[in-house]
Structures are given as C-alpha cells and as structure tokens.
C-alpha cells in the first residue's frame, strides 16, 4: 500500500514526456495507473468485508512519533476505490477534453499527484501523515483550479481555495497535535480506543473545534463554502474529480474517521449537525439561483456535503449508514453530471442552462448518461440515491426533535430534484434552443463512456443493492462506528413515512422544476443580500490585511535612516533601561574623589570638542574638533598606562582626519535639513541613551571582581612568549587570532575603498 502511493507520486514525473511521444493518446496510458490501483484495492474487498484490516507501516520520523503507517479498513477501502476508480475515468476523459492542450502533460502530473495524495489521506493511520497528504491535496487542487493560469479569475479562485483550505489545514494541524498530546499517540488506530480519555480531557473542546475547522473548510461547509463554487474555474474533469467526487469529501472522511474519538458529546452534536444542516440548505437554495450548469452542480455539491456532515453529526447507526450511502451515491451521480456538463461545454461552447436544450438527438450517449444521472440526483426509484434518501429519512426520524432535520432534508430533496432536472434532463429534452457556432455532435467515446459508466452504476447499484451492502457498505459503516455492522440496503421497505416523505419531495421538486424560471425571478431581490455573504467577509478581511500591512510598512520601512536609527536607539535604551530598573543597581557614585586636575581638564576638553562637533556650522571645524577628541582620547590612554594604545590612537586619528579632509572638499556645505522639533527629539533620545551608558559603566565598574587573566599574562609573557610588552604579546601571540581577523578587516577595507573609487558598473552617475 505504502509503495503504491509512493510510486504514484513518482509516476507523476512521466506524463510530460509521455505527452511528447503520445500526444492525445496519453490519457489511455496514464489511466493504466489508476486502473491498476483500482484492481489492487479490489483484491482487498473480500478480506475487508469479512471484518479484516490491512496494516502497513514504515518508519518516517520516529523521533516525533510520526510513522508512514497505512491502515485499510472498510471506510478507507471505499474511498480508495472511489478515488482510483473515478480517477481512471477522469484521466481517460481528460485525454479528449484537453486534447492538444500544450500543458496536458503537466495536467496529468498534477492529477496523479493529487490522486496519490488523496489515497494517502484516506489510508494514513497517523494523523500527521494524514495531514501531510491532506495538504498535498489542497496544493494540487490549487494548481488544478488555476490550470488556465492565464485567466485572472482562475488564479484568484485557486488562491482563495488554497487560503481557505490552508487556514483550515493549519487549524487541523494544531488540533492533531493537541489530540496527540491529549491521547499520547498519533496513530489513528490507537486513538480510536482512547475516545473516552479524549472526550474527558480539558483540551477536548479546542481539539474538536480545530479539527472541525479543518474538516469543514475542506468540505466547503457554511460559512466556508464559497471557495467551492469559485473553484469551478478549473477544467471540468478537475471539478468532477476533486471538487465533487473525492477531495471535498476528505473533510467528511475525517469526521467519519475520528467520530469514534470525538463524537457523542453535546458540543459535537450542537456544532456538526447545525452546520451540516445550514450548509445543506444554503447550497440547495443557492444552486437553484444559478444558470451556469457547473455552478448549479457546485452549489448542490456544497449542499450534499452538508447533508453528509449533518448525518455524521447525528451519529447514530442509521445515520452513519445514510451518510456512507449518500456519499457513494453522490460520487456516482454528481461525477457523471459534471462530466456531462463538460461534454456539453466542450461540444457547444456554453454551459448556460437557458441556452441548452434538445440535444439528445445530436448526442444520444451523453444524453443517456445525463438523464440517468439526473434521475439519480433527483432520487427517483430505483436509483441508489433513492435508497440513500430513504435511509436518511429513517435516520433523522429517530432524532429528537425530528421536525427540524426532516423539514430541512425535505427542502433539500426538493431542490435536488430541480437540480437533477436542470442538469440532466433539460439540455437533452425539449426543443433546441438556439444555434451554436458549430453544429452539436456526439463527443468521442472516450468522453461519453465515462459519465455513462458512472451514471449506470448509480442506477445498477440501486437495482441490485445487496452486494454493495454486503461487500462495501457494511464494513465502511463498521469502520465509522467502530462496531461490526450489517447494512442491508433495499429499494422497497413498504409504504411508510419515509416513502411518503420522499415521494412528496419528488412531487414538490417536479413542480418547482416546472416553475424554476419564475422562482429564480422571484428571488432576484435577494441578490444584493447574497453578495454580502461570507465571501464578502473573505475579501474584506484580505483588504483589511492589505491596509494594515501598508500602514505598518510605511511607518516602519520609511526609507529614512534617521528614523531607523531613532527606533533602534529608543528600543535599545528602553529595553536595556527596563532590565536595569527591574533591579536596584549599585552605582557607586562616591568613586570620584581620586580625580587629578589634569584629568579633569582633559575630560572637559574632550566633552567641549564633542559639543563643537555637534554644534559647529563649519565642516572643517567639526573635523578638527574630531581630531581633538581623538588626541584627547590618546592622552587618556597615555595617562592611564596604555602607551601602545596612545601611539596607535594618535597615528590613526591623524590618518582619519587626513582622510576626512581629503573627502571633505568634495562634499557640499552644511545645510539645515531637520526642524528644531526633530532636533530636540533626537537630542532627548541621545541624552537618554548616553545617560544609560553612563549608568551602565558605573554599575559595571562598581562590581568587585578579581582580574582572573592578568596574572597569567604577567607570569608567562616573558618566560614563555618571550616578550616584555605584554600588550604586544597578547596581540601577536596570546590572542593572535584576533589580530589575524583584524588585518583581514583592514585588507578588505582597502579593497572596498579601491573598488568604491574605481569601479562603476552602473550607468553614468547623475542620470
């Protein structure tokens, strides 16, 4: 299993090369991989349905408790088969859909990366490993949504999807880590046994909310649903595969997978069920307002995801059964419908519902697929979706109070009928609406065969439901509930409330379908309200972010060196001052009594010269005063027993002044740049900083400490290092490495001066 997934990643390298050789036939070759994977997983059906699980593990980052461990049970197997099976069809379909596209190779690469990551997500047994694959699905989704990257809407939709799911992803990561901390393990199979411990842990609520945030952004739950309709910018095969059949169900998968650990509390029910319900209603309602068929499908997908979430929120055995059934049914009919819409778009050039009609004669195979799938979507007998719906009613009728959920599901069911009609029936029935640029004709078989298979499967499973129940659904539900379950789906349960409700919804749906144009018109006044939805908040917050970012950057990175210095000095003074004032330092101010008069004079001369430098209006005077300061420093060195320093300082000061003078006459005279206020501000800051340094020096010199190193130097300077001038011995011997660095600095400085004066790679100055 591990190797299958890893090899799928590796295989993503090849399509670009294959494309160069095989051109549009690449699809058939690439499809071999998902087909093989489907076959591989199909082998496990027997074993899993008899209650077994398959576990594989490879060490990855054991020091963090992260294993590349895979765990195949009923739920994973169901997903794996959906992913690889639908993947096969989508790959074949894309070969024709994108025939001749110059980036077809890269498209397949990304698609394969996605498939591998999605498989990894549903197979992973370690939450962090799961997260790794989870993020990879988000990112491959980003690349695929933005596949038509020359179009701005595509790029923006891609970014939006990435940001929303990415934000959720990070919440999920935090949730997983907290979960791992609370439960002491990151392995899902071990976590499942620790449900009680987790639910009673103080971190339970944050864990739950963070994980829900991850799952709900990924599965486009309200209020994060808006990215999914926008993601319809992707090529239709992508919308089919990622944004309807598989990736968006990852959130549902995660909820189902972790429900034994997290579910069963009041907060779970009070959050998951209402969110699912609201999403279901919002999606269903909004889907009716759309005219672009892809958007119709997208919103109904949002609604369906809401439905599954709602059922997982309810959490009972029948609810879990309903969720799993609905998931399968939805994947089949919605995938087929998307592919059909793709064919329509491809062959007629439009997906506006108003412009399509009467195409059955021109494209009978596609039409058949569309009608079958629409039929399933509407939930008519004997489709599998009908069974799923019945089961849903059965589950929600058990809840208390049942009325809310029942009503909600009734409304949603009604809308699904309309959606099925708009997307599956309307384009093919009735009279042809208008002339298209090219006469509509049937798509190549590689395109229509895919939706046809899916749509037919949706009906076939409905007619013969028991094998599916026995081999797939039972073990999947068992995995969700962590208890052996027996699912026996059947078309006919006898005349009961469920049948009544679903029939009523169907009839209501048909009525609404017939009156759909009127309904849409009557909803038009709502449009301004709808534009204030969560998506508006999303763009608002991005705009805010931009404003804040602009403001802070303008303040901080103003380009004015004096402000940079000011901030640096203020920060330094503030932080250092604060850390000093935290304690009561000893200043030792009484230590001035040993002052000699010439020292005092020297200090006064030194300070006066600095004042001259600061205040002088003449550049030459300032430089001269700088020289005086330097010589005064040299004298101080001399007075306090540092002849070497005095000599060096003297020489260097002379040299510096000479250099300054040589440069000085090239510079203009002083001019007044800063205002009096600025000067005052700077003076205050500088004085405070200087005062702080003074205090620091006083504090540090008040410490009595032994001179630890001096005795060694006086002892060994002559005997071992053969020199009487200890300072020089330190420089060339004891600490010779410093000096080596220092002459390197000098050498580089000279190179720098040389290059500054001689090298000019830019254009002539002054332009």
């Amino acid at each position, binding site marked *: 299993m591990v190797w299958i997934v890893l090899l799928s990643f590796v295989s993503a390298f090849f399509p670009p090369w294959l494309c160069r050789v095989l051109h549009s036939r690449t699809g058939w070759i690439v499809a071999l991989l998902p087909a093989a994977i489907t076959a591989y997983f199909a082998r496990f059906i027997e074993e899993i349905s008899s209650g077994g699980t398959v576990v594989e593990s490879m060490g990855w980052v054991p020091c963090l408790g992260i294993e590349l461990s895979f765990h195949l049970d009923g739920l994973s197997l169901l997903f794996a088969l959906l992913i690889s099976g639908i993947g096969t069809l989508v790959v074949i379909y894309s070969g024709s859909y994108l025939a001749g596209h110059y980036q077809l190779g890269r498209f397949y690469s990304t698609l394969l990366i996605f498939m591998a990551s999605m498989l990894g997500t549903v197979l992973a047994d370690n939450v962090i490993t799961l997260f790794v694959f989870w993020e990879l699905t988000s990112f491959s989704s980003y690349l695929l949504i933005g596949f038509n990257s020359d179009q701005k809407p595509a790029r923006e939709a891609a970014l939006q999807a990435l940001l929303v799911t990415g934000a959720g992803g990070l919440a999920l990561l935090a949730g997983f880590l907290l979960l791992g901390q609370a439960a002491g393990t990151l392995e899902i199979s071990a976590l499942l046994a620790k449900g009680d411990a987790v639910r009673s842990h103080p971190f339970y609520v944050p864990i739950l909310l963070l994980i829900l945030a991850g799952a709900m952004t990924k599965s486009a739950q309200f209020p994060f649903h808006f990215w999914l309709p926008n993601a319809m910018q992707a090529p239709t095969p992508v919308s089919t595969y990622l944004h309807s059949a598989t990736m968006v169900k990852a959130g549902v998968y995660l909820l189902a997978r972790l429900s034994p650990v997290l579910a069963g509390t009041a907060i779970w029910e009070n959050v998951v069920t209402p969110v699912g319900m609201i999403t279901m209603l919002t999606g269903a309602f909004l889907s009716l307002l759309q005219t672009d068929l892809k958007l119709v499908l997208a919103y109904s997908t949002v609604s369906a995801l809401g439905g599954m979430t709602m059922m997982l929120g309810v959490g009972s055995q029948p609810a879990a059964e309903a969720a799993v059934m609905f998931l399968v049914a939805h994947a089949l009919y919605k995938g087929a419908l998307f592919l059909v819409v793709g064919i329509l778009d491809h062959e007629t050039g439009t997906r506006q519902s108003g412009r399509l009609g009467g195409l059955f004669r021109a494209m009978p195979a596609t039409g058949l697929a569309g009608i079958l799938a629409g039929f399933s979507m509407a939930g008519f007998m004997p489709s599998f979706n009908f069974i799923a719906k019945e089961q849903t009613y059965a589950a929600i009728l058990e809840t208390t109070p049942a009325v809310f959920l029942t009503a909600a599901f009734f409304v949603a069911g009604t809308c699904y009928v309309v959606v099925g009609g708009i997307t599956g029936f309307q384009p093919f029935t009735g009279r042809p609406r208008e002339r298209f640029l090219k006469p509509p004709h049937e798509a190549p078989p590689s395109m229509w065969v895919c939706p046809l298979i899916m749509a037919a499967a949706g009906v076939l499973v409905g007619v013969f439901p028991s094998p599916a129940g026995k081999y797939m659904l039972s073990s999947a539900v068992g995995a969700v509930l962590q208890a052996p379950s027996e699912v026996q789906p059947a078309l006919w349960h006898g005349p009961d409330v469920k049948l009544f409700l679903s029939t009523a919804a169907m009839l209501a749906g048909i009525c609404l379908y017939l009156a759909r144009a009127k309904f849409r018109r009557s909803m038009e006044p709502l449009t301004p309200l709808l534009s204030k939805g969560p998506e508006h908040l999303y763009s608002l917050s991005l705009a805010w972010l931009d404003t804040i970012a602009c403001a802070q950057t303008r303040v901080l990175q103003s380009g004015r060196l004096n402000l940079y210095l000011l901030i640096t000095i203020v920060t330094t003074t503030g932080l250092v001052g604060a850390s000093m004032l935290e304690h009561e330092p000893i200043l030792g101010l009484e230590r001035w009594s040993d002052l000699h008069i010439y020292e005092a004079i020297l200090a006064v001369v030194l300070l006066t010269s600095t004042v001259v430098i600061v205040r002088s209006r003449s550049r030459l005077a300032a430089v001269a005063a700088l020289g005086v300061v330097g010589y005064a420093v040299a004298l101080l060195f001399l007075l306090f027993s540092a002849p070497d320093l005095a000599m060096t300082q003297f020489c260097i000061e002379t040299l510096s002044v000479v250099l300054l003078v040589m440069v000085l006459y090239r510079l203009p005279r002083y001019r007044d740049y800063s205002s009096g206020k600025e000067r005052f501000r700077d003076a205050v800051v500088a004085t405070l900083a200087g005062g702080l340094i003074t205090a620091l020096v006083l504090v540090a010199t008040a410490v009595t400490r032994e001179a630890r190193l001096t005795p060694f130097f006086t002892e060994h300077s002559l005997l071992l290092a053969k020199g009487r001038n200890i300072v*020089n011995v330190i420089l060339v011997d004891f600490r010779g490495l410093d000096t080596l660095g220092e002459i390197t600095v000098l050498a580089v400085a000279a190179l720098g001066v040389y290059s500054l004066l001689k090298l000019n790679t830019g254009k002539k100055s002054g332009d």
Partner: protein
Amino acid sequence: MISLILATAIRYLLPLLLLLSVYILLRGHNAPGGGFIGGLVASSAFALFALAHGVDLSKRVLRIAPRNLITAGLFTAGSSGCVPLFFNLPFMTGLWFETHINVIGKLGTPFFFDLGVFLVVLGVTLMIIFSLMEE
C-alpha cells in the same frame, strides 16, 4: 613654498622614517610599538612623499603595488601561524629560534606574524591614500 620645503625635506625624511618604522616594529615585542604602529609610521612617510611628489613617483619609489603588500602581509601572517602545524602544535603556537639577536631579542613565528601586520597596515594605508589622491 611649503610644498617645496616638504618636497625637499621628505627626500631625506623618507629613509629615516622608514628606518624608524622598522625599529618600532622590531622593538614592539619588548617596548611600546609593534607592527601596527610601525606600519602606520612607514605609511605616513610614503603619504607625505606622495603629497610632495605625486602618487606616480611614490609608487615608483615604493616599487611594490600596495595590493601586493597586503597580499604579502596576509600571506606572511597566515603562514607564520601555520608553521607550528608542521610540528603537530596548534595554530599560532609561538616557535622561537634559540639564538639571541640584538635589538629584536629572540626571533620566532610571532615576529613574522607582526611583520605580516606591518606589511598589511602599510599596504592598506597606502592603497587608500593613493586611490584617493589619484582621483
């Protein structure tokens, strides 16, 4: 007028100052002085010469390009540190010849290190001053 005096004076001062600088370098290990100060004195001699006679002439008198002085200095200093490595001693361990030489005292690797410092300081200062003057 001043430049004439300087021009004449520096012709005689140059060798004297260079001698002084070497003296400062040599005695540095035992009395105030050393490679830095020596190098600075030597370079000030050349700087004065350049002021009086121009950069070109002083370059000719100097014979070696300042950049090569720097390179030589770095090389000397670096390799004097490397010598002890061949005797299986750490970098920059002082190694001394047994014989005592007048003025210098004992001769050893630290001396060559100081010589390197001298050369680098001389080269650096002259490189800076020459390139500023050439503008």
